[in-house]
């Protein structure tokens, strides 16, 4: 490919209060290419993007830009209280002859545009009423429509469902055909290999590799990201689940006949201490709803939840008291308290347990926090750093740590490794495993089939809100699961 740079970065350095987020980074984006930007959580990807778009001023280095850049930032960057249409056209509203905003045309244009992205929501309703995935699609539509020469996407798929991911990749392909250069950040290897031409790897703020992606074996890419040798990674594997350890115990959680029309119908889930049960199924098959029903966050038409044989009233408070915790899927928008420190955010939910006569032992807090920071490889300058200053993936790890340190009896995990880099993913999986070994009952939801197959001791397959089958032992293979779900899953599943 002839080189025709639209963005050139040379020797850029950016420091935040002692943290070197970017260290002498070189980066070139050529016209018409799809360029993957990868690296561990906190490697500096989002910072590089914000430097490119002028949100951050670099401490040193040179940036050359040609043409208009349009960006989808990692945090959904829209205004929840304004209407969908207003968000879509903010800053470039269609006008009538008097120079006033033509609201009718704005709504019509917005509705038409969004149908192309599979969104049929009312464009005059506040954006905040849309699901997170839909909001992400609106952000995408907005960025793409701004007749850009370069489109930057920072983890655009981390809150999308498989079907929405396909729509997004389709949009990327169209942009590519129109000759628009794209910078694409993602932790999902599959997507990267499907659409990207070139890759730049960041590690600890330095650019450690740049070149064509197709010729670079997956394992080598991972080794570049983590800074460990290929051998070492092969030995550990990329998923880190261990063996089963729940030998013949009574179920600690028994949920029977969970029904909430029209989403789930007579779903039964039983989990023994030390057992990891996976929920498999297509988008909309009722996985998240089942978890929500168990923790009491979904109004039920019918069904009971027993913890250790005792019925639990159907509300979140009672469920939490009984020892059920849930890591929600859309945690990106939930639960993080940006202005509190990492330590405070982690121990928040565990405070009652850590205090004795109302006094909270600081030493115990520090011990727990240190353990999680090390185990989850949370990249912080100190436990007292504000969570708002962490990279997106590291914020998620903090939330995960919060639920893990409440020491629940039953843990419901909805997509626990989404948005988390490959290295930390293995750590999270190993941790789930270790907790299970200590007797925790885990319900695991994941759209990555490998994660389910490796992690779960038993799989419950859902189809259209009902249990379509249960798989155990030798049945835990790709073929069995795919057979039980539906053929379409083939596209969504993570392949090696």
């Amino acid at each position, binding site marked *: 490919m002839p080189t025709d740079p639209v963005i050139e970065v040379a020797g850029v350095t950016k420091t935040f209060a002692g943290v070197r987020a970017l260290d002498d980074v070189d980066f070139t984006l050529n016209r018409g290419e799809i360029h993957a930007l990868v690296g561990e959580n906190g490697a500096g990807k989002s910072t590089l993007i914000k430097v490119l778009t002028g949100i951050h001023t670099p401490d040193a280095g040179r940036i050359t830009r040609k043409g208009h850049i349009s960006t989808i930032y990692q945090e959904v960057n829209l205004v929840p209280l304004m209407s969908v249409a207003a968000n879509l056209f903010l*800053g470039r509203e269609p006008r009538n002859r008097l120079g006033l905003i033509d609201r009718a045309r704005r709504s019509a244009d917005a509705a038409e545009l969004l149908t192309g992205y599979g969104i049929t929501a009312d464009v005059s309703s506040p954006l905040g009423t849309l699901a997170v995935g839909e909001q992400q699609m609106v952000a995408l539509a907005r960025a793409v429509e701004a007749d850009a020469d370069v489109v930057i996407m920072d983890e655009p798929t981390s809150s999308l469902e498989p079907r929405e991911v396909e729509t997004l990749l389709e949009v990327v392909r169209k942009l590519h055909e129109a000759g628009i250069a794209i910078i694409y950040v993602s932790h999902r290897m599959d997507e990267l290999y499907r659409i990207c031409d070139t890759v730049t790897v960041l590690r600890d703020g330095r650019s450690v590799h740049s070149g064509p992606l197709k010729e670079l074996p997956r394992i080598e890419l991972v080794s570049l990201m983590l800074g460990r040798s290929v051998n070492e990674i092969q030995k550990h594997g990329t998923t880190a689940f261990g063996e089963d350890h729940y030998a013949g115990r009574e179920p600690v959680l028994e949920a029977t006949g969970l029904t909430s029309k029209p989403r789930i119908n007579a779903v039964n889930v039983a989990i023994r201490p030390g057992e990891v049960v996976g929920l498999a199924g297509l988008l909309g098959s009722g996985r998240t709803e089942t978890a929500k029903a168990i923790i009491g966050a979904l109004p039920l038409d019918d069904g009971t939840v027993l913890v250790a044989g005792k019925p639990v009233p159907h509300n979140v408070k009672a469920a939490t008291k009984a020892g059920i915790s849930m890591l929600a899927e859309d945690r990106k928008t939930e639960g993080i308290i940006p202005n509190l420190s990492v330590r405070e955010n982690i121990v928040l939910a565990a405070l009652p347990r850590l205090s004795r006569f109302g006094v909270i032992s600081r030493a115990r807090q520090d011990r727990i926090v240190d353990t999680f920071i090390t185990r989850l490889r949370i990249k912080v300058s100190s436990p007292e750093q504000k969570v708002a200053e962490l990279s997106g993936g590291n914020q998620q790890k903090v939330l995960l740590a919060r639920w893990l340190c409440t020491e629940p009896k039953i843990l419901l995990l909805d997509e626990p490794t989404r948005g988390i880099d490959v290295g930390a993913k293995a750590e999270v999986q190993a941790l789930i495993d270790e907790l299970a070994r200590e007797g925790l009952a885990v319900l695991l939801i994941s759209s990555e089939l490998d994660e389910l197959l490796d992690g779960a001791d038993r799989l419950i397959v859902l189809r259209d809100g009902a249990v379509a089958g249960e798989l155990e032992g030798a049945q835990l293979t790709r073929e069995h699961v795919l057979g039980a779900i539906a053929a379409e899953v083939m596209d969504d599943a993570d392949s090696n």
Partner: protein
Amino acid sequence: MTTPMTTLTAATRTKVLQRQGAAVALVLMVAVSWLVFPRFGSLDNLRDLALQGSFLAVIALGMTFVIITGGIDLSVGSLYALGGVLAAWGSQYGFLVALALPLLVCGLIGLINGLLIARTNMAPFIVTLASLLFARGLLLAITDEGANTYQIPPDSAFVELGRGTVFGFGYPIFIAAVLCVLGGMILNRTSFGQNVFAAGGAEQSAILMGVPVAKTKILVYTMSGTLAGLAGALTAAYLQSGVTVIGVGTELDAISVVVIGGTLLTGGMGTVLGTVIGVGLIKVIQNVINQIGTLDSNYQSVVSGVFLLVVVVLQRILRR
């Protein structure tokens, strides 16, 4: 964890109650007052009511914009009084000076408010509290501790601005009406208006979306200061003098009518129409309490206070 469906209905409910809640209350108040107090419905009384409301409406218009950006402007009460005094003093040099001087000076103080808030990231509460004190001090300084009241010559053209009428309705009513219609258009039909919503709804996102947040804030506080100065000038023209003691606590009146009108105190949502309805509601309550006669006029504040509390509590509940 609310599903999109439930948040949607909650949002619609909020909208209805915020938009129409105050309107319904106003209609009820007017209907009841009309029936109970024979003098309430008289043309004279209605004209007077509208005139009294027009001064507050001009101030509250600016406050609506400020609050939608998520800010607050405590200086408007002082600027209102200062504007009146400057207009009265300026009237000896003719109509133009009498009108322009308060607009310029109060606009300038508003601009400084805006610059400090947008560029140094100081809290609007603190910055405008400082200008509240500053403007009140300036006012006392130029009037000899308030001992010196500037009179406007009764034959001056400027008096006409406050006292002239069409079908018995004072000019200030029309001025306020035109400004509010313009304000509503600016808010909903211009990019600046959309930026006001975006800046208050999610400041960080707005910045990432390329909205000139700082510029928007500066403009909004300048506008609020200028409008407070204008309200002062109109009041002076109506009273034929620059009264130094008015405007104490007016900023709180303005804030309450804006909030009663359904504008979110936390920013990002609100309407000019709601503010106008809020003004109507407060003025009707005041008027009725005056009609009862036996009731201490301090009950006006009691009733307005209760109203405000109810609205804010409702907003809280409905936002959950």
